[in-house]
């Protein structure tokens, strides 16, 4: 249902030579919800793409519940780790939502009635039951988000990684997002610039900068450290006062 994520000494450089990760060590216990914060270019997305083997590190390793992320395990790793991308359009590539949600489980070998059930369940979990026959390019921003999440949930992952899940959502959309994510039991990693979201959803946060983890602790503590935030180009929204905001 939920898995432990262990990242050890991860290093990675892009083909053009640019070094994106300079030794990341991170352990996330099963069922934990951790926010990944940091300035642009810190390596957050690059890290996420290592968790399901899209990128291969130049050094270091990732393990999901003791299963190393390696070529021979990729099929199972990708079942266990679900990535929700920043641009939902990149994730909805089939002609309609139903087929998109079915894509993942179909690749796992699920078919027929089982497949149909998975699709309906996943869509219901995100409150998108009515989206099943809709063409992907005619959805609103919020609907796209929900559909994209459903495509990942349908694989029944143990770990969910979100890349900027609230970036194009309005207030109501954000509320719905929080409501959708809160009851989910799998381990969650949420990459975000939305500090209130991090506070609301994640008891623990990690700050990355220049390819390294520079801070790791309870979200509230990190966000109250003004110097730490400034160092890492993070800023609380204007007028946001930590003492009075509720923590989930």
């Amino acid at each position: 249902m939920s898995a432990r994520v262990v990242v050890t000494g991860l290093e990675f450089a892009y083909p053009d030579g640019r070094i994106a990760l300079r030794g990341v060590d991170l352990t996330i216990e099963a069922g934990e919800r951790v926010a990944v914060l940091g300035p642009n270019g810190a390596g957050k997305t690059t890290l996420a793409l290592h968790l399901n083997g899209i990128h291969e590190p130049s050094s270091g390793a990732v393990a999901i519940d003791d299963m190393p992320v390696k070529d021979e395990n990729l099929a199972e790793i990708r079942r266990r780790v679900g990535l929700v991308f920043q641009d939902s359009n990149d994730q909805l590539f089939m002609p309609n939502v139903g087929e998109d949600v079915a894509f993942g489980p179909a690749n796992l070998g699920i078919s027929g009635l089982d497949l149909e059930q998975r699709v309906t369940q996943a869509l219901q979990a995100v409150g998108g039951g009515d989206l099943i026959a809709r063409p992907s390019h005619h959805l609103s921003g919020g609907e796209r988000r929900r559909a994209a999440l459903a495509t990942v949930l349908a694989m029944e992952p143990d770990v969910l990684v979100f890349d900027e899940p609230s970036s194009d959502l309005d207030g109501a959309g954000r509320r719905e997002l929080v409501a959708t994510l809160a009851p989910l039991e799998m381990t969650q990693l949420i990459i975000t610039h939305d500090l209130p979201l991090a506070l609301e959803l994640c008891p623990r946060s990690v700050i990355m900068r220049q390819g390294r983890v520079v801070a790791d602790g309870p979200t509230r503590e990190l966000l109250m450290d003004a110097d730490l935030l400034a160092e890492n180009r993070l800023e609380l929204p204007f007028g946001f006062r930590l003492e009075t905001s509720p923590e989930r």
Partner: protein
Amino acid sequence: MGAGHSHALYVHEHSPIHRLAPEAKIVAALGIVVSIAVTPRQAIWAFGLYAILVAGLVTLSRLSLGFVALRLLAIAPFVIFALFIPFIASGETTEVGGVSVSVEGLWGMWNVLAKATLGASVSVVLTATTEIPDIIRGLGVLRVPALFISIATFMVRYLELIVNELGRMRVAMSSRGYDPRWISQARPVASAAGALFVRSYERGERIHAAMLSRGFSGVMPTFGHRDVERREWAAIFVVIACAALTSAFAFLTT
């Protein structure tokens, strides 16, 4: 604006033809158009029959003739060329309204006009009664290679997105006063095209990552489709038979 291809030609209706499976419609369209194309041009009566058939299809699809006529404007350049043929063609001539025109040229003009118009009308009925993803799916059922189908599906899925991006770039350019008239001013247009390609390609790479993340290993999964009922195939067969017989008869009697 350009050729206006991205305007969906689909007309939302609930006609018997709309309800037909796409593979059946594609087969029917091909059957009819091929019959028309092989019909000798002298058999003018045959083309009259085809016209009736096409008119019947248009009515059955709850389309208006005006709509079809409008869509037929796409073949206008070729129609215009056809109209010129009698004047530029060689061979025996005759007088029409005091002007000397080629007899063979007149027949040639008739041939192009009749076949192009009828053929295009059939295409319009097909596209107006079938949504694009369904057309592609129908091709897949008809054994067009799966890769071809997948690539076409992706193309259609992302077409609107890319057209919009291109449109935004043009708006941005024209709002900065750019109004290219000469090819020598084409640099920004071309740069925009290049930038759009890079963006598109990078999106393609991200989509690939998303596909891999959901277990893709190179073969697209296929999802079930509604089987074409017997009576649907029967109807298609009847229609094609009518066209084919007309064509055969025309062939044999000229």
